[in-house]
């Protein structure tokens, strides 16, 4: 009986149905997120359980798909685990004589599926355990970091603009913020070049003052969302000495990061290897 349930739960038809259900839910979510950018953007700075708890009773019609997505992914994870275990057992049990290369080639799809589970777990760790904190960054201001309350002082902030004689003048190309720690060591931060200190990643971010005020005075769900992913206006500063934008320090603790990157990179490498090596292995009708 248990074995029967085990085999049903690991059926590849269930895999197909769950993957299509996940795709449909994600598609639905993309429509909601496209029309309510500010609301769902909050989720990038909060743990998912905290955000859903805040919004599920107030706007259930907009957030219902997120718990549904998590349930589908949990079922898919279980199905993938069972299916991959069954296949490994089928390969290892009555292993025929053959080269180790051929055996590993047959085993690769199952390893890929286990790595998929690793990636899902990594994302779950990020969504439920991650922490994101933003703090304004001004010259000579101080920032406390981590549980050890390490003190960082902002020594300087320098903007590099595109050339004056170009169509991109008055637009910021890059910003360098130099921080000094307690040991008087300099730490440079730039956009897309974070620093790693005491288990935390430090990023530069920028926001325009008027948008920040708007978000502080109105709940995100009430904001008529003309907000979108295009932030070109944030990095225009016509007056260099009186900038409109506010530089922020984003401090991130992400326990799932390395799990996700390991899983994705390994899956990518194994997939490439599998299909290239497939041309080298004899077809025996039992691959896949």
């Amino acid at each position, binding site marked *: 009986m248990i074995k029967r349930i085990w085999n049903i739960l690991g059926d590849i038809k269930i895999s197909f149905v769950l993957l299509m259900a996940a795709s449909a839910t994600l598609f639905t979510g993309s429509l909601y997120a496209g029309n309510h950018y500010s609301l769902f953007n909050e989720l990038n700075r909060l743990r998912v359980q905290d955000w859903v708890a805040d919004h599920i009773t107030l706007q259930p019609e907009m957030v219902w798909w997120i718990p549904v997505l998590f349930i589908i992914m949990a079922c898919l994870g279980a199905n993938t685990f069972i299916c991959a275990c069954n296949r490994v057992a089928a390969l290892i049990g009555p292993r025929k004589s053959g080269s180790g290369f051929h055996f590993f080639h047959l085993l690769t799809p199952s390893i890929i599926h286990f790595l998929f589970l690793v990636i899902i777990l990594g994302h779950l760790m990020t969504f439920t355990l991650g922490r994101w904190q933003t703090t304004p960054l001004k010259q000579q201001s101080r920032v406390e970091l981590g549980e050890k309350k390490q003190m960082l002082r902002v020594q300087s902030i320098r903007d590099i603009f595109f050339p004056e004689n170009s169509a991109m003048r008055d637009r910021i190309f890059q910003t360098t913020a130099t921080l000094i720690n307690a040991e008087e060591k300099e730490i440079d931060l730039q956009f897309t070049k974070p620093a790693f200190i005491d288990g935390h990643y430090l990023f530069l971010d920028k926001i325009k003052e008027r948008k920040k005020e708007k978000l502080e005075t109105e709940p995100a769900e009430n904001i008529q969302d003309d907000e979108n992913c295009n932030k070109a206006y*944030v990095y225009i500063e016509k007056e260099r000495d009186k900038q409109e934008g506010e530089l922020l320090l*984003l401090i991130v603790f992400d326990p799932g990061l390395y799990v996700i990157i390991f899983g994705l990179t390994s899956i990518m490498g194994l997939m490439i290897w599998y299909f290239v090596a497939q041309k080298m292995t004899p077809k025996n009708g039992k691959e*896949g």
Partner: protein
Amino acid sequence: MFTTGVHAYLYLTVACYIASFILYILRVRRAGAGLLITGVALQSLYLLGRGWLGDVFIPNPIFEGPFLLPWCLSLIPLVQAIKEPDSNWGPTLVLVIVFSILSALYAKGMIPPTPKKTAVWSFLFFMSESMAHALFYAGALYGFLSIIGKDQVNGFYSWIVWGFIAYTIAQVIGAVWCFVGWGNTFNWSARHLGSATIWTFYAGSLHLKFIPGWGKRSAAFALAGAVLVFIMSYSSYLREMSFLRVGG
């Protein structure tokens, strides 16, 4: 650069592709292959010229989807035609023509990139994503041909597989870019949710091969996948047409 803002190069590219296809149909394939190569060369020069739309070299417009996708698609018949000029490289050229015409109609200027979008990860991401889309469209085309009996039954499958691999590469690179730029490996935004939609759809479609009796229907899923990719990507491109642009 001499092709910067000179859209005649793009229109000439489209003309070369159309002429190449006509020659292909008339079975003058070697001359058609020559025109195809010319078209790809012109398109490459036009793409490169987009890097100077802001009067300073910025790679972002080169990697903009509506312009990069037709170039990625053109590599498919190009490789086929170079390897064997008398082979059937014509069908994928239809895709190249269609998407090149769409690019000719698209807004030509550059959306001013923010510092987060000038990272090298962004260029790698858009390149791998566009190549994946190109492979998905090619897979859909061969899937359609197999449904109407003009191609071998599972001839489209390897296109979908390599498209899925390229798309997974894009997701890996995209996750790194998203993290170094925004502090998250996954962003709860329409763009990322759309990418995940496509990835899970094709992951499901690839499993059809292993379900007895469903192998033949997977060609229909290849077609459906291409429709999904088109809707997700071009709805985003259409929205971006209204963004402020410089140059072009």
